[in-house]
């Protein structure tokens, strides 16, 4: 086994792994544990990794399996389903009015987005995390989650419509150079 090869293939993806873990687990301590356990499992099975393939997808698959088999039962984040068009008083979106400090506003945007994603059902949230946030293809996300590609597309479609409804104020502030 080659430690340097392992680190070269996996360490660049640690931000993505932590972010995905945080969205799955819902708190930083569990996210760190999940990320660490994912890396240890990946190290043990690095011999099965095919060089040249997508190591980020490989890691995310290990992490998702680990979460489903060992972390899901003990997680603290409840599943929340929002019906289409339902208003959620607990979701406090920041004002749509642009503030004097653009960076502050942007951070509020990010927080609102994170909260909105957190309110998605787990399967939707994971599909959004894998594809929209971390750039996996639908086929790769399907492999990670163990479902057909069409299921990923369906989940993404429904998740995005919900997110749009929750994030309309933020969507109005996205600049052309963000696209």
């Amino acid at each position, binding site marked *: 086994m080659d430690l340097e090869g392992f680190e070269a293939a996996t360490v660049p993806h640690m931000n993505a792994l932590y*972010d995905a873990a945080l969205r799955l687990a819902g708190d930083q301590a569990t996210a760190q544990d999940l990320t660490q356990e994912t890396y240890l499992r990946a*190290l043990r099975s690095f011999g099965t990794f095919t060089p040249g393939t997508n190591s980020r997808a490989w890691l995310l698959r290990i992490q998702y399996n680990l979460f489903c088999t060992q972390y899901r039962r003990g997680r603290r984040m409840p599943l929340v389903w929002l019906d289409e068009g339902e208003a959620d008083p607990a979701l406090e979106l920041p004002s749509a009015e642009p503030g004097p400090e653009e960076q502050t506003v942007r951070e509020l945007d990010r927080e609102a*987005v994170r909260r909105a994603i957190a309110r998605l059902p787990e399967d939707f949230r994971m599909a959004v995390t894998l594809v929209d*946030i971390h750039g996996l293809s639908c086929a790769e996300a399907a492999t990670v989650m163990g479902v057909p590609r069409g299921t990923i597309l369906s989940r*993404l*479609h429904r998740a995005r419509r919900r997110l749009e409804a929750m994030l309309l104020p933020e969507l109005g502030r996205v600049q052309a150079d963000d*696209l």
Partner: protein
Amino acid sequence: MTCEDFQLRLTAFSLGELEQDEVSDARDHVATCDNCASQLLLDRQLTALLRASAVPAPQETTAAVLAAVRAEAGAGRLAPSPRQPARRRHWLALAAAVLAAAAVLAAALLVVPAPDPGSPLSAAWSSYHARGQDGLGTPTEAEADRLFAVLGPDSRTPDLAAFGLAKDGWEARDLAGHLAAVAEYRDPDGGRVTLMRWRGDLPRVARGTEGGELAAYTWGRHTSYWWEADGLVWCLVGTIDQKRLYGIAEHLGGESSPATAG
């Protein structure tokens, strides 16, 4: 393509996942339908928002994961990275020993005979267990002098305030014929940590894995960490979180190693 057809394919089109034979139809439709063009813009704005919401791993998480990976690799007898400084390698070896020990000790407990009731290990456990009944105070001046004469500067009770632990007494104890300095700590949540040091050899069952310098040994639901430095045996045990306890063991082990002992 109708508006309804486009809406059904909007996500796939926006993500570049639409089948090739449908892409041109979708483009043609957007070119002539303001409503669907607006919807596509909104969808792409949403993608930009989502991507900007990614949370980077905190530095401590990155460091902890890398340390765990290198420790695990060390336990598997991988060659350490040549870029790692010698001091780091030392602690990676310790971490590797702990991880490996944690993995094997459950099994080891099944095959390793129970410690000799007269061994320092048993005496240390009895001392730790008895704390609930009789507590610790402060040694007499003569006892403190004797501890210093036998153990040297390491007889002093280390300050663990940085770990949220307050000193809660210390004393001299006889552990199976070994004069030991025993210190107690408490944290604000009632967690308890006991540190014992005496001159001698590590108990056999606490020697950990081959080449390890820090060993973990389980006492019922309590995990204890053991190491040896300058002829002294150190034993740390407590009711606090294991990771925290290990961090303290690593800290104390670093201070008591030959490189830093005063």
